């Protein structure tokens, strides 16, 4: 049984009239990597700030490593915590080395960790240059190095791959895998995380301060019932394919340049594949399972729709009541 590192129970946060978080229940186990997704204003940053102890929730309970993150033990907790804020700009006039050693000393760790950390994020050649000469990607790497100071047991990354080139993004994800291997809990927070699926255990989707969905990618795919997309290169007409595969719930789109797009339930994948493999007219085949982004779009669309329906209903109700009988 793994201990939970973060526990949030019915957490709500109001800023005046605005409810930034509503009834958030969330747990994070030791060594678990969770992707937290949501559009701007969905409550990602507020959730992070609550976990970091920067703001207190107006209702509900939060505990991090078993303590209140905004309470008396906060400083002890913070020694075990790494955070990469969104868009952080470090002290421009200092060198990368100086920036990192400042933060390392604040975390009560000496200067000897600084050079290895900069090495690890690939900034070693630039460590004695001023931060103002750094590119966006280099600054992001410096932020990453900063979050890694003191080998924290819980890491929170806010938009970690923004500004990173594909190579650096890959390096970042392999670092996340390595952290998980060492039992570090990680929250990756983003509105878009291309290619993140393989590196997270669970995804949490936030919208308008509420938790819209939470689970493994497979669970989310299952509950969203999003179709699997197959693209075929074939001389067969879409109608013929649709007729042959109707029994599996597959739908065919229009033929375009000798290609046909099929949409089907995920469960129909193997039987449909068997049929298509046996068909000599099918020359090539591409498959695309629902991505995290399409899942996110689906859940996010649901809450927007339901909000739209609610306001439509209340508008109708008002109209009906207002009408003289």
């Amino acid at each position: 049984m793994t201990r939970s590192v973060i526990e949030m129970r019915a957490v709500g946060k109001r800023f005046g009239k605005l409810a930034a978080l509503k009834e958030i229940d969330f747990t994070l186990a030791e060594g678990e990597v969770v992707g937290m997704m949501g559009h701007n204003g969905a409550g990602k940053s507020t959730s992070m700030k609550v976990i970091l102890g920067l703001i207190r929730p107006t209702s509900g309970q939060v505990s991090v490593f078993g303590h209140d993150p905004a309470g008396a033990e906060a400083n002890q907790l913070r020694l075990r915590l790494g955070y990469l804020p969104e868009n952080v700009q470090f002290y421009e006039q200092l060198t990368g080395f100086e920036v990192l050693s400042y933060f390392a000393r604040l975390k009560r760790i000496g200067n000897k960790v600084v050079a290895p950390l900069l090495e690890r994020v690939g900034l070693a050649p630039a460590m004695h240059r001023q931060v103002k000469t750094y590119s966006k990607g280099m600054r992001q790497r410096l932020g990453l190095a900063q979050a890694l100071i003191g080998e924290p047991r819980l890491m929170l990354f806010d938009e970690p791959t923004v500004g990173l080139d594909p190579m650096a993004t890959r390096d970042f994800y392999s670092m996340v895998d390595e952290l998980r291997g060492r039992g570090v809990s990680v929250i990756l927070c983003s509105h878009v995380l291309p290619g993140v699926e393989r590196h997270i255990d669970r995804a949490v989707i936030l919208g308008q301060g509420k938790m819209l969905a939470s689970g493994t990618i497979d669970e989310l795919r299952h509950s969203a019932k999003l179709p699997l997309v197959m693209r075929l290169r074939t001389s067969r007409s879409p109608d013929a394919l649709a007729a042959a595969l109707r029994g599996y719930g597959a739908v065919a789109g229009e033929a375009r340049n000798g290609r046909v797009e099929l949409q089907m339930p995920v469960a129909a994948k193997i039987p449909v594949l068997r049929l298509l493999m046996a068909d000599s007219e099918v020359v090539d085949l591409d498959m695309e399972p629902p991505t995290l982004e399409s899942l996110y779009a689906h859940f996010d669309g649901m809450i927007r729709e339901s909000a739209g329906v609610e306001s439509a209903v209340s508008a109708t109700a008002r109209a009906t009541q207002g009408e003289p009988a």
Partner: protein
Amino acid sequence: MRNLTIVAGKEFRDGLRNRWVLAITLVFGLLAIGLAYFGAAASGQVGFTRVSTTIVSLSSLAVFLIPLIALMLAYDSIVGEDEQGTLLLLLTYPISRIEILAGKFLGHAAILGVSTLVGFGVAGAVIATFSSGAPLGEMAAALALFILSAMLLGWAFIGFAYLISISVTEKSKAAGIALVVWFTFVIVYDLALLGLLVGTGGKVGQGVFHYLLLLNPTDIFRIINLTFFEAARTQAGLASIGADAAFHPLILIGALVAWVIAPLSLALWIFRRREI
């Protein structure tokens, strides 16, 4: 305590690195020597004049300059870090808000303190070497009092700068407010007092008036440096009224210390309550 010295050390090193310390020291030193040498130019002679004259004219210039330098030095210390995102990051470190602000204050106070001490101190030594007349002891005491009150004045305005820096969310706004604060304390307040004095036909009680002067750190600074020199009163304008009140120098220094503590404590209080 450790965190305090880490933050203070960084601020002080920043001050050395971006030449604040050097610039302030040079400005103060050259100002003092220049005034001492050319101070008597109006009466047709050039050369080092009496120390008392020098300090009186120096204090009437420094009273404009020191608050401005202090505000420029520190106005963006919190709002600047807020804008670049490092404040949010710092707050996730094992350091309290009090330690952040107090550490910054120690660093900035050291920058201004060292510059004041070295700038005016070296100038004082030069003047002492070349001028004749006043006994060395009396001169050193006057200079020491001048330097001490100048430091306190600067520190008070660093406190104001923090108060501004914590209350706004944009650097440009902080700069604007800092300018208004400077203008209010250095110029408007005295003009308003003069207006009050003239407008009421001098009916404002002398006692009340003395205490009104204590409500402005720049006036306290003026009074401190005037009371030391009886002879200079004729040139001193409004503050000579304060000098007449014969506040004990210790009371005046105490009032200036209170002006250092009050804005700083208020800034700490607001900073602790502020949501990020």
